């Protein structure tokens, strides 16, 4: 047997006038975890979509176990033992978990057989899941598990994971990456697309770094250093990692003054009558960042939306300023209208209360200023939001919400799925907003982000909100419902 499970040689791919990949190469050895590092837009996902048959390369060869292959579609890739877990969910929301997993199969569907096979697979891999739940009812973390089970159900020899940990809690992410290792131990190969350096160094055997569509570094993880990888990823525009991550900026914090957002004994029931938030009380003052930590599905979703005035409380007293900026987790769906221009998307803030006519000229000017001030890279304000990269979309949303609301900002996983530069920019903006006197609430599934940004931390566990020390130990304990002695 050939010891290279998947080899991509000199792959080139353009979309219209943009070149996504320029002679990119990758060689994943059998029985290894191979990390692909690179900033957003470096071509990581495009390269793997070519390996998975979703895109056809303009030039270059794909070898599986040494044989040249070309995949006309994902099903051809699956037939050759390649499976992919996508960054954005590709599940049918109205279907059950079993139906979604069975969707990739052929021939007749035997619901009971499919269900028992799924349960067996879930047991074997340790991804606990309710096979009869509808996907739309599941939290993001559980949907991610369904995606992975769906990929594993094809019994792949090469498993491609596209930013799999982006929305998981640290514990879940750790767990998932360890499981990728187990798959490898059975003779498989895992390819991990990530922009988290430390994950790559910790979990991968080999690392390939892409920059602007080309392979710029490849080698063993144990021979790589953080510095070498950072300079490979960023090229000439090197900056110290610490400053990029915006650490310890809380030393410069403004002095805390009056209360801007306040909840007193607030409870929230969801549409099905389940009490998601139980008698929560919280005060957020001007000039402070309150970090919210929670394991997926503990009521933080509702807490953030009550604070942002996006849902009403079932009971209790909510005091909010007239406008609260909100950066929702699913920005593609909840923050932007993809088929409208950037100008129209900027106009969206506050559109619910606007009277009379839209002053499109003034809004266009405001949008142009925003694009400059928040470093949103776009041709002009008339392009559709869908043409922006994830990082630029988020910078636009952050800018719009801060400029619109000024005094209060609620952010939910604001740097999820962004590259180092974009995350740093987003965090810097949030800190700036705080320094200029805004009351800020930030939830992140990345504990590092909370610890580095928050002036004060609260933990939501089973719908209850409690104050907590700003260190990994106390946050980690509180997230699991363990109260300090």
């Amino acid at each position: 047997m050939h010891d290279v499970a998947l080899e991509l040689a000199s792959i080139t791919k353009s979309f219209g006038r943009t070149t996504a990949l320029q002679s990119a190469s990758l060689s994943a050895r059998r029985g290894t975890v191979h990390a692909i590092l690179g900033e957003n837009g470096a071509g990581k996902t495009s390269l793997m979509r070519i390996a998975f048959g979703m895109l056809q390369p303009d030039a270059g060869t794909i070898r599986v176990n040494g044989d040249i292959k070309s995949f006309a579609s994902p099903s051809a890739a699956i037939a050759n033992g390649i499976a992919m877990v996508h960054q954005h969910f590709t599940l049918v929301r109205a279907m059950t978990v079993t139906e979604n997993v069975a969707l990739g199969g052929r021939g007749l569907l035997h619901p009971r057989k499919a269900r028992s096979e799924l349960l067996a697979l879930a047991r074997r891999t340790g991804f606990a899941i309710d096979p009869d739940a509808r996907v739309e009812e599941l939290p993001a973390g559980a949907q991610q598990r369904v995606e992975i089970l769906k990929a594993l159900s094809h019994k792949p020899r090469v498993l491609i994971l596209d930013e799999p940990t982006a929305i998981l809690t640290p514990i879940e992410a750790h767990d998932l990456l360890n499981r990728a290792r187990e798959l490898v131990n059975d003779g498989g190969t895992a390819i991990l697309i990530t922009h988290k350096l430390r994950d790559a160094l910790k979990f991968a055997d080999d690392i390939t770094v892409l920059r602007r569509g080309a392979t710029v570094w490849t080698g063993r993880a144990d021979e790589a250093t953080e510095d070498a990888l950072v300079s490979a990823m960023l090229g000439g525009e090197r900056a110290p990692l610490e400053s990029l991550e915006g650490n310890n900026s809380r030393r410069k914090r403004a002095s805390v003054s009056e209360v801007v957002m306040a909840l007193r004994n607030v409870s929230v029931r969801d549409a099905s009558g389940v009490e998601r938030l139980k008698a929560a009380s919280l005060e957020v003052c001007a000039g402070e960042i309150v970090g919210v930590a929670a394991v997926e599905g503990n009521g933080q979703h509702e807490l953030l939306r009550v604070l942002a005035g996006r849902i009403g409380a079932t009971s209790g007293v909510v005091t909010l300023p007239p406008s609260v900026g909100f950066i929702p987790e699913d920005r593609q769906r909840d923050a932007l209208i993809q088929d409208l221009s950037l100008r129209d998307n900027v106009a969206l803030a506050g559109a619910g209360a606007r009277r009379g006519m839209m002053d499109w000229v003034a809004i266009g000017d405001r949008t142009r200023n925003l694009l400059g001030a928040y470093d949103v890279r776009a041709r002009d304000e008339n392009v559709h939001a869908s043409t922006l990269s994830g990082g630029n979309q988020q910078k636009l949303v952050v800018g719009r919400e801060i400029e619109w609301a000024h005094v209060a900002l609620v952010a939910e996983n604001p740097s999820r799925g962004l590259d180092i530069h974009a995350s740093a920019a987003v965090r810097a903006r949030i800190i700036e907003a705080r320094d200029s006197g805004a009351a800020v609430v930030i939830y992140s599934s990345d504990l590092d982000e909370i610890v580095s940004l928050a002036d004060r931390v609260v933990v939501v566990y089973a719908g209850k909100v409690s104050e907590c020390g700003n260190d990994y130990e106390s946050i980690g304990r509180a997230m699991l419902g363990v109260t300090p002695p």
Partner: protein
Amino acid sequence: MSQTTAFIVDTLVHATPLMITGLAVAIAFRAGIWNIGADGQFIAGATAAAWIGVSAPATIGWLALPLALVAGAIAGGIWAAIAAWLRSRFAVLEVISTIMLNFIATYGASYLVRGPLQEPTHVFPQTSSIVAGAHMPILISDTRLHWGFILGLLLSVLTWYAMKYSATGFRIRASGMNPFAARNAGLINVPRVTSGAFIVSGAIAGIAGGVEVCGVTFALYENISPGYGYTAIAVALLAGLNPLGVIGTGILFGALETAAGTMQRNAGIPATTASVIEAVVILGVIGIAQFRSRCSVSAT
């Protein structure tokens, strides 16, 4: 009058109800509301306008016309409001409820013209003629072309302007394209906005019914709509849901339907040929749109 002029006049007379109902459908579709019920709303509007037109005292003179049109708008709006209420209260899909309401309107009008609203001799299944004051003025003398066509143009331009430049129009477009972002980022009351657009859509279809009664038929008949509200869907889609585009596609479909009658009379070509051509046009446009969107798949 030359044959060409006669054809143009007939085309514009046919285009008027198609243009106005097409506009109604375009507004609803823009709001993400699948209003298949423009036909029922048209009939409701025609019925209300005929009722006012027949029962208005001659002493109010020309005031009978605006009264009849307003009554048509109100009736069409109410007809749509039923579906809007079912949708927001019981989550009944508007596609189904509006189709059902079309049947109720059609057979309801049938009952009225054979019962309470039938002309005094009780021979024909129609109302008596509306009073002269409710007649739509003629646009070009000695033709059937009436001011309803101009009203259709005005409504289209007004709607285009409102959709593009008013805050309400922007809310409608945002709610239709992405209700999640409209609510979370725009703090828009999406159910209220879409229900409002639904009712306005019904009111405009109702005006179309009123215009038809006051400008062309001067009475309410059975089958007053030969399926205008359904052709309106094609008119709106072909226009890309653009209120100004509806003017062009309305006239195009008006020409096709006029030509269908002429062809059948003079050349023995079945009138259904026009329906075939309409369908081919729609399929062609959808095909081109799909092809374009595939060619412009952007890199991620």
